[in-house]
């Protein structure tokens, strides 16, 4: 098949047009595409950032009213957790909050880290509360 085509070309085209070089060369295009590729590879970042929404007074009106019925979760300097003043383990805390969230009682949770507690520990407790079903969690000191 190929041989036939070539033969036809030979017959019909003059000698100088017969060369198989395309009209527009591909090489500069590839150069530019490579440059763009390198640029995007170096400049782009694949961040896995998430944000946790924090309550502000504008969300719920008066602060005192908001805190009146809230559950206080304190984090001790060693990482121990207090639920309304009673020391609890993480699993017990998750169970209680799970039970409260099932009963449909709208509760608010205040997380109060002691001085010396890192942000990572505080965020871990906020995570635990949220994954157990707590609706609104805020940080306080």
């Amino acid at each position: 098949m190929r041989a036939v085509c070539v033969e036809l070309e030979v017959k019909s085209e003059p000698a100088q047009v017969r060369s198989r070089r395309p009209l527009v060369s591909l090489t500069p295009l590839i150069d530019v595409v490579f440059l763009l590729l390198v640029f995007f590879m170096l400049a782009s970042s694949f961040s896995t950032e998430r944000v946790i929404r924090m309550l502000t007074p504008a969300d719920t009106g008066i602060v005192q009213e908001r805190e009146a019925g809230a559950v206080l979760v304190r984090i001790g300097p060693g990482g121990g957790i207090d639920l309304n003043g009673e020391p609890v383990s993480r699993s017990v805390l998750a169970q209680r909050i799970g039970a409260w969230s099932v009963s449909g009682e709208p509760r608010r949770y205040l997380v109060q880290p002691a001085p010396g507690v890192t942000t990572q520990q505080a965020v871990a407790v906020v995570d635990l509360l949220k994954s157990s079903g707590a609706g609104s969690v805020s940080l306080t000191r």
Partner: protein
Amino acid sequence: MKIPPPTEDNRTELSVVPLVNVVFLLLIFFMLVGQISTPESLDIRPPRSVSGEEGIGGAVKVLLTRDGQIAVDNIVLPESGLVERAAGILAERPAAEFQIKADAQVDAVRMIRAMEGLRAAGVERLTLVTELDRSR
């Protein structure tokens, strides 16, 4: 079975076109998936978390490092200047969202104090930046 040696023409044609295809695919991938953002002035590793949502672009970033530095929009400030700077930004953009990006090792009380400062300045939309923990 005899394979004829490739001619000059055949060889270049065979190698370039699939290469260009793959390079185009990579280019499109990086253009769509990667996000181009300005690098941050301070080195911060945010706490890891499983909860949280996608952040929005264009938020004002408040950076807190473990050695006590504060930066708003990549400009390092003294701790006392935070409220004033936030109020200045809010005067220009009243609906601005503020993102606190604190290092995981920062004292939580210090971070909460910064949040209180922002609330006092009148910030109504405030979020805490975490990094998605894929290991859990």
